């Protein structure tokens, strides 16, 4: 079936299989490999992309259901001017190690910051519980997000 959607600000029309996952569509058809496959069950958050500004697990989301929507992947976020601040602060706090969870983490953080609801560190922890990181022990990420959200 044919779908039309916007990916990172570009209008795209493509044939997809009805059962094709958004993650596979992005990685295999569009060569956007920043979204990662890991748990396949919407637990780890490594495949997170933004759909109309909201984070979704692309491993459990049909490509066909993204028709008519705006999809943002890490490649798109990295082109935006506000990315520089994310990059600088995540780098300064060493809020990444292997980097496999990092794109999904950043997209979730981006959506949360836009929402403006990160008012405490407890709130940050709760809101990011759907993005796992196995390397950092989370503290560096917590500090980076707290600085981004101007939370003490």
């Amino acid at each position: 079936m044919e779908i039309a959607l916007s990916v990172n600000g570009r209008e795209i029309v493509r044939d997809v299989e009805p059962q094709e996952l958004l993650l596979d569509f992005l990685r295999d058809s569009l060569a956007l490999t920043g979204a990662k496959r890991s748990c396949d069950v919407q637990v780890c958050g490594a495949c997170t992309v933004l759909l109309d500004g909201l984070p979704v697990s692309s491993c459990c989301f049909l490509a066909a259901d993204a028709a008519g929507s705006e999809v943002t992947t890490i490649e798109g976020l990295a082109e935006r001017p506000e990315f520089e601040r994310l990059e600088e602060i995540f780098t300064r706090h060493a809020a990444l190690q292997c980097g496999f969870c990092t794109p999904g983490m950043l997209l979730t953080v981006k959506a949360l910051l836009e929402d403006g609801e990160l008012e405490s560190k407890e709130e940050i922890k709760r809101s990011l519980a759907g993005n796992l990181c196995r390397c950092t022990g989370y503290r560096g990420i917590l500090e980076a997000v707290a600085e981004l959200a101007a939370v003490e």
Partner: protein
Amino acid sequence: MTTTVRETATRTQIGRSQPRRDAREKLRGEAEFVGDLLVPRMLHGKVLRSPIAHGRIVSIDTSAAEKIPGVVCILTGADLRDLDPYYGHAIKDRPIIAIDKVRFHGEQVAAVAAETPAAAAAAVEAIVAEYEELPVVATVTDAVADGAPLVNEGDARPGLFHGLGELPPRDGNVCYRYRIDRGELEAVFARAEIVVEGVYSFPAVYQYAMETHTVIAQVEVEEITVWATCQHPFLVRAEIADLFHVPVASVRIVVPYLGGGFGSKSYTKMEPLTVALARKAGRPVRIQNRVAESMVTTRRHNMHCRMRTAATADGRLLARDVECLFDTGAYADNGPRVVATAGDAAPGPYRWAAYRVDASCVYTNLAPAGSYRAFGAAHLQWIGESQVDEVARRAGADPLEVRRQNLLTPGEEVRPGGKPLDADLVGDVEKVAAAVGWGEEKPPLVGRGVSVGLLAAGAHPVSSAVCRLEADGRVIVLVGTTELGQGPRTAFAQIAAEEIGVEPDHVTVRGADTRFTPYDRSTGASRSTTIAGLAVQRAAADVRAQLEAIAGTTEIESSELLGLMRKHFGFAGGELIGRGEVAPLGTGSYAEGPVFWEVCVGAAEIEVDPETGFVHLRRTATAADVGRAINPQLVERQDEGATLQGIGNALFEEMVYEDGLLLNDTLLDYRVPSFEDLPDEMTCVIVENADGPGPYGAKGCGEGALAAVPAAIVNALADAGVPMSELPLTPERVWRRIQELKKEGKWVQ
């Protein structure tokens, strides 16, 4: 040109938290992992895995599967008749794919190569395999019982890197045994006033590197190329060369960024099967595990242990006796080394009059177990340290004081014939105790614990590196260390910059590629900064020496660098090549080792809810006793990551089996720590006594906390009134224990 050249005597790059060199590409999603690579003409591989734990393969019918459009070939054991298809770096016991028998739930029975992942998956569904079930050896205690069925028959054959001395004849399902016997054990126990004794069990857990095992293999006339999620490319190269009868120079292993490892990608995993499938297909093939498949590719050994500790009435430790059975699953993998390391960790770093360790590596019909961060120490430290705390309780002494009195001091023997202690353990434990408020008044239901241990680290000390100073003043470091998040590219850039006298961001360190990067034994055992880092330091110092020879002086101004290069080569090209090598001082054998003792020291403060059994972590602290921190921020991240894994291991992680079948093979049923599991306070104390064998007195870190933190939590929970002898400390288990204690009248709060 901003290159500056500095005196090597004044260290300016070491001990600085330089930003990670890979941050930009990782944050932007540009960092390439094996699953992101495309190789021309690449096929997709899928694996049919055994649905039973033990059985004879009666038949495999691939006829329907072969007719599915897009299927190129299907590999089974019958395709390997021209090979000696068994591998295993310790014991050659594992077939590339099941031959005649399956020995665990999830073993590879057939593999399909197809044009698309969907066609491969459909073909796997269409293969009909019939099995005749055999009795399942489901636990280590079953495995060592009289008359237990054998998981593997025939004599054990040593692998290429077994390092275990002479292999004794096979003894039932025990594939390796490590024993230490020191002093008159029974006599000392007979005169001891305090004897603590217990039986303990330790669960299998999954390392969960978020990037699952992924391999692309291409077999050509002149070369076998493997892009692999592997931590030890040079050891994998040797095993592939051995299996497929080609010289090592004809095998190329390429390792891009790794999405975590923690030991799960150590040694050979999915590489032989992928190469065999690509060989049959005549085209490159990629196999990418799903999580459920990685869970049966490797895991941590579960263990059954009996331990007793003897002490005087005032808490002087006298003797320890340890017997443990390690469940290595159907194939040895790294089991023998895990067991030897556990044996070394078992006594704990104390001054004993006598001790005995008897550790066995046992085959069962579970999936193979291998390396996981801090193996051996993680298995034994929580047990030994809980007995030290029990000694303290019975002696009416402060657990910290008991450790001060009994811990080994630098230079004392840790293990007969091995490296003496090279760390200040008393200083380390005092620091972490202070960080969790040791001695402060405790509210009810709050407990504090410390733990101390040692981990034999460094593996076999062989590494080499090359530094190339280019005509524009930039430096390329070639080294075989793999980047799995721990940050060697950043640390090595700092070391090379320091030695040559350039800025770290003018140094490029890329991934391992055995065709170009010189030999490095492995990335694991906390060895990279210490051993590969020393090779990098020597290679960079070699470049510096060449520069000084050209200049005729050790005083080189930054502005002179390019002029010196030009003078030497007579034009704006050429490069100075420096070589660095690390080889063992003695034989490098395990018995003479280790390269250094990694310190496993931690403390915890917990609060237990007696109504639910839930354990809340108020404070944790770990000591990163690293000799010299090349990059303090990276050191902290390593310890913090290990702390969170330790919290998961202590409180909730467990692979659940029933008759050899793994029941919780998804992240929905197997929970790992999330942001919400962060302790209220987490401290990493960096200790720098310059007592390591690495560059500038550095020694490795990042594993010790995974042994120390669960042990400290167990001790803190016992301090709050709930002694436990089984991990993980799930709310249910803790609640049930509290009910038992109430019945026995021992619940005091």
